[in-house]
């Protein structure tokens, strides 16, 4: 091997000289092509986050529109048709275009920084996934504005969505949106899993991994095991609709319940795919603001893993009313209730950490307190609906609507808002305004309770979900009015939050580690340079920046003129091999475009798949074909 002539980082090459060389190596071309060619996980992650927040805003505005319709009994703000489309678009957008992508976006941004590597594994695949996801979102919303957005609910039950009753293209659009987003999510999950398993800084054993990274690992594995189910389901539906297969047709040996089993085999883990990254945020924020390590770290890890596994055994609790064998009822109940034990353990550990530390009541920490107050209500209402005799009443009513908004907004969005406030200085180099932050925090927290708590009541008083209006005289007037007022308060507060995001670009400078946190992402500058770390850090404890207050142990000897990563062993994270990291390329974008054309056209004709494969294959070959033999390639044959 002729490696001696190459520049490598080390005691002889450090400081500004190294940084400018690395900057050159890890930069991308300027201009639009350069932008589309980016393989920097930070850029891609940020794009994911911003795009997902835009979809949140769209779906949120839709929710406000629906709340106006439901404000009064017999209201005529929306037609039945528009209302049905709206709740379908709201749910589909929130689940597939906001919740999962925003969590994956944060994971894409943070994971490589937290594990101390220069870029994530398969950065081109990650870039590709972003364009596929964006394509899915644009497709869904374009179809909606053209008047054929989906209208059968976010779980799109057959036969309502099938060839016989799902007239028009609505349901095909839903199915193909799912295909787009799941392809993206699966690609990201593989890249994140590999990053976590193989690219951790030397010394970051599994037992020293930040809890957010653990959450990333568990959720990525859950994506890998659950999302093929909905992918398959939507393909079976499309083939029923487009080429006349009979999977869901009871008249021809098919069964509509097949749809539900496959859907919820994905759909239940989906909830934890959204919630577990949020527990990662919470663990990081609790640690930083309590000024101490997490209490019972191994228990928290075990709880994460246990939740991830148990989540796959619960799908049937979405189907209690379909006429399951009665002998199984107690088993389903016990299984569904059991999942609250690991979550209860995590909650205990967070509170114990706070209790033993000395919390600082900054905005991110406030969101964690709000999370605990809110999520526990959602968790306990989850215990209530786990009991079959109770669920048969509460299922598909506003009680459920209240429950899953408590779990998803309280459990995932509150921590997300905390996380955005917490990591904003890392992304931008500026602090968010704490004054605006606190105002919007209180409005969101209180507005949320006002909007969603009364939904428990309206459900108990007999209001089913997915109705565009309700009769007067059932006692539903007051809770619905309160919900509408609360929803608008939340809407205003979110606007304020976004305003804070924007004006804080000119906010106070943050420095590398404004919160004095312990994990590696705070060891580099804010925002981090393209190469993340000038030298790859070496880790000696769970809280590296707290245990070495003034210096950072590093390893050295990676190439400087080429993109190179250090791989470490699976468990103990000992240095193992070096591997090149992909350079910017336009081909992931072109491949995503080709794939998008296939998906969109296949809604109209199955032949599109056959013809669309050709440009897709060309794009993929161009992507993977090495561009030129690099001068320093370590050729093994002279």
């Amino acid at each position: 091997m002729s490696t001696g002539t190459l520049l490598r980082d080390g005691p002889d090459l450090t400081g500004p000289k190294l940084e400018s060389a690395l900057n050159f190596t890890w930069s991308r071309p300027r201009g639009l092509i350069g932008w589309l060619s980016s393989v920097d996980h930070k850029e891609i992650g940020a794009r994911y986050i911003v795009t997902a927040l835009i979809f949140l805003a769209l779906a949120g505005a839709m929710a406000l529109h629906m709340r106006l319709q439901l404000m009064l009994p017999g209201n005529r703000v929306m037609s039945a048709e528009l209302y049905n489309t709206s709740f379908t678009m709201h749910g589909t957008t929130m689940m597939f275009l906001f919740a999962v992508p925003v969590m994956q976006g944060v994971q894409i941004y943070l994971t490589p920084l937290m594990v101390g590597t220069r870029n994530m594994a398969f950065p081109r695949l990650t870039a590709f996934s972003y364009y596929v996801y964006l394509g899915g979102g644009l497709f869904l919303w374009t179809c909606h504005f053209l008047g054929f957005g989906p209208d059968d609910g976010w779980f799109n039950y057959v036969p309502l969505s099938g060839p016989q009753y799902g007239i028009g293209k609505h349901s095909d659009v839903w199915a193909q949106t799912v295909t787009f987003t799941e392809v993206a999510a699966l690609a990201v999950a593989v890249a994140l899993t590999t990053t976590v398993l193989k690219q951790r800084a030397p010394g970051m054993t599994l037992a020293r991994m930040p809890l957010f990274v653990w959450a990333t690992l568990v959720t990525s594995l859950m994506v890998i095991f659950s999302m093929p189910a909905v992918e398959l389901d939507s393909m079976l539906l499309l083939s029923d609709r487009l080429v006349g297969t009979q999977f869901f047709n009871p008249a021809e040996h098919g069964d509509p319940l097949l749809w539900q089993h496959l859907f919820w085999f994905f759909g239940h883990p989906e909830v934890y795919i959204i919630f577990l990254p949020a527990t990662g945020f919470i663990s990081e924020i609790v640690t930083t603001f309590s000024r101490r390590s997490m209490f019972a770290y191994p228990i928290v890890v075990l709880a994460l893993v246990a939740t991830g596994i148990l989540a796959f055994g619960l799908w049937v609790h979405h189907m209690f009313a379909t006429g399951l064998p009665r002998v199984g009822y107690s088993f389903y109940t016990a299984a569904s209730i059991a999942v609250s034990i690991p979550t209860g353990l995590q909650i205990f550990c967070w509170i114990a950490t706070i209790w033993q530390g000395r919390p600082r009541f900054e905005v991110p920490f406030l969101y964690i307190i709000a999370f605990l107050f809110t999520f526990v209500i959602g968790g306990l209402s989850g215990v209530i609906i786990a009991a079959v005799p109770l669920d048969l009443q509460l299922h598909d009513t506003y009680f459920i609507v209240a429950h899953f908004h408590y779990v998803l907004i309280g459990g995932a969005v509150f921590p997300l808002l905390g996380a955005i406030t917490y990591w904003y200085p890392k992304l931008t180099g500026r602090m968010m305004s704490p004054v605006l932050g606190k105002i919007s925090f209180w409005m969101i927290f209180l507005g949320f309770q006002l909007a969603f708590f009364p939904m428990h009541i309206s459900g108990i008083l007999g209001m089913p979900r997915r109705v565009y209006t309700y009769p007067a005289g059932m006692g539903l007037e007051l809770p619905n009015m309160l919900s509408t007022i609360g929803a608008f308060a939340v809407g205003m507060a979110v606007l304020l939050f976004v305003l804070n995001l924007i004006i804080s670009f000119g906010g106070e400078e943050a420095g590398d580690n404004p919160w004095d946190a312990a994990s590696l992402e705070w060891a580099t500058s804010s925002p981090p340079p393209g190469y993340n770390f000038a030298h790859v850090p070496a880790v000696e404890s769970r809280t590296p920046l707290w245990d070495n207050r003034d210096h950072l142990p590093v390893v050295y000897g990676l190439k400087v003129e080429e993109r190179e990563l250090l791989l470490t062993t699976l468990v103990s994270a000992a240095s193992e091999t070096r591997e090149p990291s992909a350079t910017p390329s336009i081909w992931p974008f072109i491949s995503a475009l080709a794939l998008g054309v296939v998906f969109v056209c296949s809604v109209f004709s199955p032949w599109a798949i056959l013809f669309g494969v050709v440009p897709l294959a060309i794009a993929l070959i161009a992507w993977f074909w090495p561009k030129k033999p690099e001068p320093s390639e370590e050729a093994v044959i002279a």
Partner: protein
Amino acid sequence: MSFSGFQTMLGGDALESSNFLTLFTVFMVVCTVMYLLVVGALLIGLWRSRSDREPLTVESGRHHETAPAFRTALIGWTALTFIGLTALTIASFFTDRSNASVAENPRLTLKITGKQWWWDVEYTTQDASRTIRTANEIHLPVGVPVEVSLQASDVIHSLWIPNLAGKQDLIPGRVTDIQLLPRKIGTYRGQCAEFCGIQHTHMALDVTVESKADFEKWVAAQQRVAFAPTTPLQLAGYRYFTTRECSACHNVTGTPASGTVGPDLTHFASRRSIGAGTLPMNTGNLYGWVADPQSQKPGNHMPTIGLEPNDLHAVVAYLETLK
């Protein structure tokens, strides 16, 4: 514990719904205690952290240490949640057993078929000629266990009469069932609880629980054929109904109208509502419905025909005789 209300889970007007109330109360108590424990611990933790004690933080260099009491507390907390959840599972099991007991010896059976967006109801008896067919309403004798067999002819629906019992889906290609044991005389409302298309909202069902005598009377009335028209206006309505669009979809037993696509109207005027709970039954609403069902329940399968005023008067007059 019971509340008034014709569509509420708090009614407790039948065996299953009163079991629901008991179990729900148990769960609420346990969950409230759990919630107070968590929030209480959080608040104490936050408050204590402001006290003078030396915290185990990075400032003191003791951020990896843990007070031993917390390990004990962790075990205690796990045991507590485990016991609490086990108790709830057991309570749920016994409730379920009690609910299942209704199924053992039903004394009345009926069949409900869910259609977009109305309920087709059939009271089945050994003697086929005494079978009752109605729509969007059921009558039940108080204190009699009932077995309801459920089917769907198009998409999935879900029958939910919260005052009496939990819901049960109606699934194409399958037959499901639900058991009811009403305990209180009253009028209730059921509603479809599984989204089933554009007018899912207006797919309700009127439920009357009455004394056995009243129920027998109702059955007898339902088994009669439709009343014959008496006034000239009614007769004109009858002619229109049986010879024009109406009879293509609707059945009126005892007349040539024998459509099966729409609800059976033999005793239509005796029902409490029009259009599967869309409008209360009265003359004004009947005019509105017959004249323009699409503006009353947009998207439903009954077309707006555009009757001439004379025909409209006549058809409404005839429909009102169908007691």
